[in-house]
């Protein structure tokens, strides 16, 4: 097969992967929000208008991750390629994997705070503004991992590979996409769990709203770290100079570095999300214990992070040592 038709094949196949995987998360997240809005309305039908509005705003934010995926799919389908080579085909595949996987976690995660806000509005109608603001902040942070994926996808799609040797760069291009995309799943989901319990907490204990938002942002920032490791490995794979070689082992080391960091980032992201969710929940119930709770949250998250750091170490060894 010549390189032009291979590139066109990769673009079409990649468009399918990008939007196919990218649609999973947003659909689940929005479904969760709607599933929470209905019982909230039945509890207090007078608030129906307010709850309906909040549901739609929350769903719109959850939708943005899959819109990024749609954009990547459309660019892959309708861009006229100036140069086509085997490397361009691999870059398209990497871009679609990055965006497809990267949209899953953010889509599901953004649905959680929106659902909790629908319940919170019925419980504390007077706190509507604070709840909605908090939902918007929390959901926006959930979207950051999918934005990382979008950035890597665009860099991959619009890179110029005409002067580069194909081996082992092809593996680095796919590895960068896998690393950024998969590691975004955990961070998106975890961030959503934290924002959910913060919205519940504000509805339960409106006086603690400021402290709760601060704790939420602290918890979310730590859940994002594994996505940042994934992005870092992605950038190293893309921009490091890989000496030309025909050895299949050298290519496999680069691909494996991406897979290792990508999969390894999922677990710590979700686990840290659980931790901060529990901590924020109890800061709302016992605001005097905030110091003790925050300290044990940070210690617990640091330990849960360790396997993500092991994955990054193995990925760096695969890139720079072997």
């Amino acid at each position, binding site marked *: 097969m010549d390189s032009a038709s291979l590139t066109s094949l990769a673009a079409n196949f990649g468009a399918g992967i990008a939007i196919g995987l990218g649609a999973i998360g947003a659909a689940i997240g929005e479904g969760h929000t709607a599933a929470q809005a209905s019982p909230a309305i039945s509890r207090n039908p007078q608030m129906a208008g307010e709850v309906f509005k909040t549901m739609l705003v929350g769903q719109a934010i959850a939708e943005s991750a899959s819109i990024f995926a749609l954009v990547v799919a459309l660019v892959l389908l309708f861009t006229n390629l100036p140069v086509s080579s085997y490397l361009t085909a691999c870059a398209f595949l990497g871009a679609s994997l990055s965006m497809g996987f990267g949209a899953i976690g953010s889509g599901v995660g953004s649905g959680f705070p929106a659902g909790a806000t629908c319940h919170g509005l019925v419980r504390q109608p007077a706190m509507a503004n604070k709840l909605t603001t908090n939902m918007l902040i929390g959901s926006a942070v959930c979207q950051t991992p999918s934005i990382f994926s979008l950035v890597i996808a665009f860099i991959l799609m619009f890179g110029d590979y005409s002067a580069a040797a194909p081996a082992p760069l092809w593996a680095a291009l796919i590895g960068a996409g896998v690393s950024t995309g998969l590691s975004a799943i955990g961070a998106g989901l975890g961030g959503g769990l934290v924002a959910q319990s913060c919205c519940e907490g504000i509805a339960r204990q409106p006086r603690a709203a400021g402290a709760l938002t601060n704790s939420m942002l602290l918890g979310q920032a730590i859940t994002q770290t594994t996505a940042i490791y994934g992005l870092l490995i992605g950038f190293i794979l893309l921009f490091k100079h890989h000496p030309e070689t025909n050895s299949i082992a050298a290519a496999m080391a680069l691909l494996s570095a991406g897979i290792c960091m990508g999969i390894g980032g999922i677990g710590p992201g979700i686990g*840290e999300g659980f931790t901060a969710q529990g901590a924020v929940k109890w800061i709302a119930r016992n605001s005097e214990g905030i110091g003790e709770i925050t300290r044990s949250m940070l210690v617990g998250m640091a330990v849960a992070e360790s396997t993500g750091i092991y994955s990054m170490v193995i990925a760096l060894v695969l890139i720079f040592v072997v």
Partner: protein
Amino acid sequence: MAIEGVDLIKAAAFLGAGLSMGLGAIGPGVGEGMAAAKACEAIGKNPKEAGLLTRTMLVGQAVSESTGIYSLVIALLLLFVV
């Protein structure tokens, strides 16, 4: 592309190392997060016992960390010994 026996074995070892550490990191990450979540909730209920609860949390997390360390050891063996 020249594919020789030694090269192929190295390639498989590198891929295995990445998969070993990547997949092995999921379980401890989620499990330790759950342990820490329950510890935070328990400290919220009873802040006076924070020291005892933190100690219990750390011991529990250290045990669930063990499988992550096994994965790390296997990954390092695949990278440097095989």
